[in-house]
């Protein structure tokens, strides 16, 4: 079980002489921490553990907090909040210093471990106090510490993030360009966590006007602020409502900034910017057409060619994929067979197919399948490129989700584009491609798909089998299919619960392997 393994990866063995009961509790906590840890790791939220300004007076603790330590931490947190409460009320001499001190203490406690004592802080009433500390006119240091506390409170469970509701208007207000940059960045970070929670909170943030100030923070050329703002924006616009994405691309200067960053930024910034492009291209048609008309496609291709950082390659590849999948008219106008960019796109896609990373292989195949769904010239371009040998190899050796995407590419290469005038729903075959690919052994891979429990895969396999049965010259089709145990594969469907697949398999067997099969040999 994954849980057990996770526990064994704790770096410090627990040395103590406590009784069995405590030991049991610790083990239980290790299991639940394992699950909690998994959940926290895949969240779209990020803890702030090291200050933006490189605050290095605190040692960052990455070890598991054992029982006793955890409850001590919680107690300390409660008293820190109490301390904050009293200094917030205090108006006398040195009030500012006391406040900053108290905030600093709370922030330190909330940044120590992977699982800060958020619940304790909330229970003790931290939020209203932190909201007060965000009031207009407060000194930067105070704002920074308060925003930092809020950031980490919002980095965990849903109900904890939702607790930030009262603080949102102020956090948004402090994004403004008149304020200090580190403060704005810390507020953006907190808001990014809130946006990462879910649609409901995203909508609230949007209606409170968070989009515009965050977008403006992306306009400068460099700095960590740009990066944090980009990340926060990617969480804010991820929908599923496309409104935010459409609004974002309309912000004056934003498209330029995206282009600039994709061209010149370092990997870290380019990564977050690419994620913004991912969501823009996935959700907004307006954004897609504006992006396609700019240099973005070229820049994405360049990044794919030059970089080997998986973190960067994933959103760049996906952006490319979304743009190509988005709007056929605009993209077909750019990805013209014969233009340099088209050849470059296929080249970088082949590079991704050859990568060792599963995500890159799968999504690159997806992108290729969409290009292969284009014109005959597009199909010829792919067919004669380096892609085909790689695809054929992947079809027989890769994990099943990659094989499915590869199947889409190969199948699309063999069938003509659907013309709107074609009435009988049977697109014609590109015989040259079909014969060649089958000759190079792809049929076995498709029949393997037929044998999978996944409906989509089986469907693809049966559809390709139909192409072979129908299209191979000299009636070779049935023999080839039989040789690859295609008949057995199709017979399995007689007792399959999926009626569509049953009918598909039955109709093929009836038509091509009827009583006349083999008669005229």
């Amino acid at each position, binding site marked *: 079980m*994954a849980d057990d393994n*996770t526990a064994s*990866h704790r770096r410090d063995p627990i040395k103590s002489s406590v009784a069995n009961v405590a030991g049991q509790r610790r083990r239980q906590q290790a299991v639940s921490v394992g699950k909690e840890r*998994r959940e926290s*790791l*895949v*969240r779209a939220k*990020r*803890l702030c*553990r090291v200050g933006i300004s490189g605050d290095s007076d605190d040692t960052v603790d*990455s070890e598991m907090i054992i029982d006793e330590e955890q409850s001590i931490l919680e107690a300390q947190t409660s008293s820190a909040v109490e301390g904050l409460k009293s200094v917030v009320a205090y108006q006398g001499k040195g009030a500012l210093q006391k406040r900053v001190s108290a905030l600093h203490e709370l922030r330190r406690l909330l940044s120590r471990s992977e699982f800060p004592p958020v619940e304790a802080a909330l229970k003790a009433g931290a939020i209203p106090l932190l909201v007060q500390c965000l009031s207009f006119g407060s000194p930067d240091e105070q704002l920074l510490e308060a925003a930092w506390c809020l950031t980490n409170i919002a980095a965990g469970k849903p109900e904890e993030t939702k607790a930030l509701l009262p603080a949102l208007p102020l956090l948004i207000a402090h994004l403004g360009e008149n304020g200090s940059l580190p403060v704005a960045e810390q507020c953006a970070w907190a808001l990014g966590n809130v946006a990462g929670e879910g649609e409901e909170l995203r909508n609230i943030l949007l209606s409170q006007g968070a989009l515009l100030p965050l977008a403006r923070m992306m306009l400068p050329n460099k700095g960590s602020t740009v990066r944090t703002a980009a990340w926060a924006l990617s969480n804010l616009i*991820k*929908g*599923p409502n496309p409104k935010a994405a459409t609004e974002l691309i309309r912000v004056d200067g934003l498209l330029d900034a995206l282009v600039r960053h994709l061209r010149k930024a370092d990997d870290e910034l380019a990564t977050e910017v690419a*994620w913004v492009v991912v*969501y823009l291209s*996935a959700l907004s048609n307006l954004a897609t057409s504006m992006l396609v008309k700019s240099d973005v496609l070229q820049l994405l291709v360049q990044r794919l060619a030059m970089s080997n950082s*998986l973190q960067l390659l*994933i*959103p760049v590849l*996906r952006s490319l994929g979304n743009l190509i*999948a988005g709007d*056929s008219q605009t993209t077909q106008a750019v990805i013209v067979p014969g233009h340099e960019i088209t050849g470059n796109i296929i080249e970088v896609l082949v590079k991704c197919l050859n990568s060792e990373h599963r*995500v890159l292989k*799968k999504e690159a195949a*997806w992108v290729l*399948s*969409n290009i292969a*769904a284009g014109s005959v010239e597009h199909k010829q371009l792919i067919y004669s490129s380096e892609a085909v040998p790689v695809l054929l190899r992947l079809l027989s050796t890769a994990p099943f989700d990659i094989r499915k995407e590869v199947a*889409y590419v190969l*199948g699309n290469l063999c*069938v*003509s584009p*659907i013309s709107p005038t074609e009435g009988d*729903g049977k*697109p014609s075959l590109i015989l040259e491609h079909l014969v060649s690919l089958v000759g190079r052994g792809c049929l076995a891979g498709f029949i393997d798909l037929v*044998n*999978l*429990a996944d*409906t989509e*895969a089986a469907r*693809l396999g049966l*559809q390709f089998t*139909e192409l072979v049965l129908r299209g191979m010259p000299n009636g070779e089709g049935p023999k080839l299919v039989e040789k690859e145990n295609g008949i057995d594969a199709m*017979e399995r469907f*007689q*007792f399959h*619960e999926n009626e*569509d697949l*049953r*009918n598909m398999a039955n*109709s093929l067997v*009836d*038509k091509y392997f*009827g*009583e006349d*099969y*083999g*008669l005229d*040999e």
Partner: protein
Amino acid sequence: MASMDVEEAQLGFPHWKPLRRKFAPESPFFASGNIERELLAKQIALDLTEDEKHQLREMVDGEGRGCFCPIVGCGARLSSLEDFEDHYNARHTASCSVCSRAYPTSRLLSIHVSEAHDSFFQAKVARGHLMYECLVEGCGLKFKNYKSRQQHLVDKHKFPTSFEFFKKALPSKKQRQKNQRRQATSKKAESSSMQVDNETMDGLVSGVSKLSTSDSTPSAISFGRRPTRGMTFVPRAVQHEKKPGST
């Protein structure tokens, strides 16, 4: 998605159509990439080991990929899609020792053996007993003949009209070649007396068919020059022709 229209369903086979596929940002298609993003972003801050990352990927992938066996009446949980092949070979290939036909459950196999290879079964049918059981486990109904059982499956259990429990397996290539040669030589040698032979043959055949008294499908045995050589797939169209009264 390359999904089937309602129209297509009525037309027959849904042919391969090259379509552009677009996915929403939170689509399961993008899930593993999204996970990867978060893992990579946090790995430095949280000092994740390669092992931990690997486990996390596997865990998230795995949750999406377990499924249930799609063979009717099985419902076994498969831990991964690649599992299906092993599971199928282990549990769904019980085959008939007489005609080599494979069935997905031992119950269906035994029903097949009774109906197709057991003369006692046929004798009871001839005497009017309800011998044809419903194929759906737990239903319990029995019928006088294949056709009414078939109708019950379609009406009550929503089986497709194309479903045929009694369907003969395609003989191996060698067998078909043997049959062909036999046919060819007998054709040459006896072309002159073909007419007479046919009549005799047909007479014999119809006699045997009457023995079985099942009023539709071809019997398990067939002779020489009948169009159904040995054991072949009989297309539904042909089977429908051979329904009641035709033998």
